[in-house]
């Protein structure tokens, strides 16, 4: 059994005013995993990262990082973590190199080692040529990469990333993904919160979905996606249709005369679908998923919880 790099037990946090941050959450992130934390705005993702970093204090429960309790062994727990926050939190008037070097010092690196590591992580982040420049002049994407470089300077065993690619262009996002994959391959445990579901699906081997402070789904990514009971396919037709074909046991919708949508239930193969479409005289030129599969899972679980809450309130 793999040891947990991060373990939360019965953790709860309620903010002043009564808003629930987290409600009795249990969570384990195995060492070496790439863990995705998903959820709508206000679900509790940033609260969870805040609790791990001690920026937010839990009302109750136990939180351990690298085996250290963050409440009673905060120094040891924090020493093994690197943190990339959601919002820029460095002094923009300082030069890029000084920002990273200072952080290296805070983690106990000697001045010489701090300078060396700063060069290495800035190179990794593609910012080495900006070392002497003020952080003020960096683009949004560069600022995010600077925060990642800063978080890596002390070689953390656990990396926490709170929406690290928000607002980053496609090229920058892919560069960040490559960097994170490399780190994970080197054994760094990564906890990533993101709104980009394709990002989570592409990177994460494990996922949890948070909603209103509670975990509504968790598990290995493949296993969770396999559990989807339906996926919607969009078919581009070879010839126009006047009406959607009637196929027994399948929901079909005509989007326009050249496009057909079909909900494919779990267990049914696409080959079977094509056979039945062929039998109805429908010829298909192209096929794609209407939504990313994880997006479907996400929406399904959030909707299921909303229904449950509505039912409980009725």
């Amino acid at each position, binding site marked *: 059994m793999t040891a947990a790099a991060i373990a939360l037990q019965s953790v709860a946090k309620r903010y002043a005013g009564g808003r629930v941050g987290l409600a009795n959450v249990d969570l384990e992130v195995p060492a070496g995993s790439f863990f995705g934390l998903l959820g709508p705005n206000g679900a509790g993702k940033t609260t969870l990262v805040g609790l791990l*970093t001690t920026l*937010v204090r839990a009302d109750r429960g136990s939180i351990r990082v690298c085996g250290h309790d963050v409440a009673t062994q905060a120094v040891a727990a924090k020493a093994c973590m690197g943190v990339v926050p959601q919002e820029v939190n460095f002094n923009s008037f300082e030069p890029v190199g000084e920002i990273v*070097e200072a952080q*290296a010092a*805070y*983690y106990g690196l000697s001045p010489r080692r701090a300078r060396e590591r700063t060069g290495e992580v800035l190179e990794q982040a593609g910012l080495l040529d900006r070392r002497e420049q003020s952080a003020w002049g960096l683009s949004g994407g560069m600022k995010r990469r600077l925060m990642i470089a*800063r978080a890596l300077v002390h070689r953390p065993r656990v990396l926490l990333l709170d929406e690290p690619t928000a607002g980053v262009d496609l090229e920058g996002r892919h560069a960040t993904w490559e960097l994170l994959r490399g780190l994970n391959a080197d054994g760094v445990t990564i906890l990533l919160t993101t709104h980009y579901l394709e990002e989570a699906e592409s990177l994460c081997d494990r996922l949890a979905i948070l909603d209103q402070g509670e975990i509504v789904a968790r598990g290995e990514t493949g296993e969770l996606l396999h559990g989807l009971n339906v996926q919607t396919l969009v078919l581009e037709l070879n010839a126009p249709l006047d009406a959607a074909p009637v196929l027994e046991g399948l929901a079909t919708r005509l989007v326009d005369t050249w496009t057909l949508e079909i909900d494919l239930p779990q267990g049914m193969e696409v080959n079977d679908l094509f056979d039945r479409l062929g039998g109805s005289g429908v010829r298909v030129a192209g096929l794609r998923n209407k939504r990313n599969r994880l997006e479907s899972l996400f929406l399904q679980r959030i909707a299921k919880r909303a229904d449950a809450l509505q039912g409980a309130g009725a």
Partner: protein
Amino acid sequence: MRLAAYAFAYRGMVVKQVRRFLRAWVQNLLPSVVTTVLFLVIFGHLIGRELGTMRGVDYADFILPGLIILAVATNAYSNVTLAFYGARLQRHIEELLVAPLPAWLIVAGFATGGVIRGLLAGALVALVAIPFTHLQLHHLAATLGIALISALLFALAGLLNGLYARSFDHTSVVATFVLTPLIYLGGLFYPVERMPEPWQSLAVLNPLYYMIEGFRYGLLGTGSFAWATTFWVLVGATLVVGGLAWALVARGVRIRT
């Protein structure tokens, strides 16, 4: 091992603080120098000539220790207030809070930055005063000891201000409405024994009075009481203010949710 890590972290914090105030040295260091020159020219020479000597020294020489300690205290205070409030406002205080640093080290890092700026400003003021006064050094240990402990006390008090400030207005309220009156009523421009009652009795409660008198003794050899009294009063006040700053930072008041 941990001790070495703390030493590097402390150095990192201090370097960051010093770089911060040196980046804007004209704004951070020159005002004290300009104010001192004006005080020495107008009060020390133009008005001071009419006043004659004070405790056996020229008036300009009499006010100089107070002006130096004023520069030390206000620079130490405002440096930490603005640095800490700025770090809260821009959220880069989080760089320290997520790092493996105990609260006492964070307090020490900010306070040292303030102490360095306070002592630098005091040294500059003493330097520019040379052409206008007969700068003396009667007791080296008293001078340095009181300057150092005063800078530390005010740096720690500045941290409390930076911790509780909700706007930039709040960062100057205490300095303007509390510190400045206390310094002026603490015998900077005249001996407290010449003040009318109740001001003379109230001066005993003013910590700035001890600071000015102690520092004046260090430079001129004249004072109302032994400099060691001043020193230990300031040490006591520093322990109280420092303890409070540590406790508040450790509890995360206004810096953690």
